[in-house]
């Protein structure tokens, strides 16, 4: 698919932005390409984040994939987001899983090809 790698990069950039805006010092990133999908995992063992913020992120990421939105707006991902606009990432992925047990946060995103 066209711009697939660039879109994956934008998604990762966006999630890293969330981690760094919550005072993390170290982030582990894994991106795996399978035959059918891209699996993105971002994890930190030290993040200062309230349960509300973690739930809010989960809600924003857990929206249905919307290819029509992705086609139009994907280039905006990763740019100066305020927090409530993480839903653009949600529109670009098919599945999202958030595990938060303070101070550890793991975000797993699956994007089908």
């Amino acid at each position, binding site marked *: 698919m066209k711009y697939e790698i660039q879109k994956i990069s934008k998604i990762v950039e966006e999630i890293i932005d969330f981690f760094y805006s919550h005072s993390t010092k170290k982030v582990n990133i894994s991106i795996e390409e399978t035959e059918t999908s891209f699996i993105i995992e971002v994890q930190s063992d030290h993040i200062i984040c309230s349960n509300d913020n973690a739930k809010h992120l989960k809600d*924003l990421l857990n929206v249905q994939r919307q290819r029509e*939105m992705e086609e139009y707006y994907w280039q905006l991902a990763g740019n100066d987001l305020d927090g409530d*606009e993480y839903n653009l990432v949600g529109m670009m992925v098919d599945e999202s899983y958030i595990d938060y047990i303070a101070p550890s946060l793991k975000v797993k995103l699956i994007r089908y090809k």
Partner: protein
Amino acid sequence: MPEPERRDIEIKIGRLGNLEILLILPSIMLIMAFLLDSPSDVLHGLYKMIISPDVLLTDYLEIGGIGATFFNASILAFTNIFIIYKLKLKVNGALIAAIFTIIGFSFLGKNIFNVWPMYLGGYLYVKYQKIEFKNILVIIMFSTALAPVTSELAFGLNTSLWISLPVGIIFGIFCGFIITPLSSHMNRLHDGYNLYNIGFTAGLLGTLINSLLKSFGVNIKQQQILSTEYDLILKLFLTGFFIIIIIVGFIINRKSFKGYTKILNFSGRLVSDYTQLVGYGLTFVNMGIMGLVSMFYVIALNVTFNGPIVGAIFTIVGFAAFGKHPRNTIPIMIGVLICGFVTIFDTQSTIVIMAGLFGTTLAPLAGKYGIFVGLMAGFIHLTMVMNIGIIHGGINLYNNGFSGGLVAAILFPLLNSIKKGD
């Protein structure tokens, strides 16, 4: 315990339920079309609208009458809602904004003839790129801003229809083909602070087309055809619809306005889809409130309602699902007004009122940087929009989106550079 999201609390109406809500407005307009005018008047008016050049500023209420205008708007809305239904798309903020923008501009330039070449161009693009049409539907719906290209070339060239009609249609298809990659890229120039991004894209594309045409001796003349006779009926129609949509939202939100203030905290920057952020109920409430706020703005200035003003109001209502709310739009409107008072522009002219309403394309700037920046953005927007139409000759219907894109592209980096902190 954190408060549950409103979208989890509200009554679930599903995709079809949301489509049915979108059908309310075109249904009302279709009925009103035949209550206000006879079928023959409607058809005759529609014909006159189709063969008019449609460049800014063409009020279809004056060209074809109220029956034909309502009929035209309802048919375009029904068709686009049907496309959304057939493509099984979830009704989101962007699609609501696109539907209402199409309805709005069906009062001043989009008609049942001139929009389809854009769709055909989009269809050829997806075939070329081997992607699905639904991926680009939002872009194509908005891209009908360039519909006057087809009309102007088909009916404004003063040559045989056998030549001008295919030329107009081919140019329309060409615009539909190239606008998808262009519009996606243009988002980066203003970083999502201009809500009418296609207006910006279409402005640049319109400038190119206008320059090409001028080079071959074809001069597009801008015009100003405005109606004055439908003021009261338009006010009643709009007020009635906005109250209905607020009631619908109130019911979906379990007969409550609880949670509405949350919407006021969003900057509105692209992509702020309120259907996902606060739920459908509060989104519909916000749409109705923004409609009433916009009407109040026009009435307070003692200006007669006409097609372009109705078009601007419906566009605001649509984008009240996708970025706009009272807190980030009112400063822009006032900024435009202040500029109108201290400069040479007539604050009661339709074009300045339109700038005040459509200027809310810059709402994210007010939403993020505050009231003062909102006032400044509105002020600058009016000076820009009053001088920019001539570049594209009026073939870009979203002239304010073009201006808004330039204003945002200038202001955003400046504001970001002087902002304190990270």
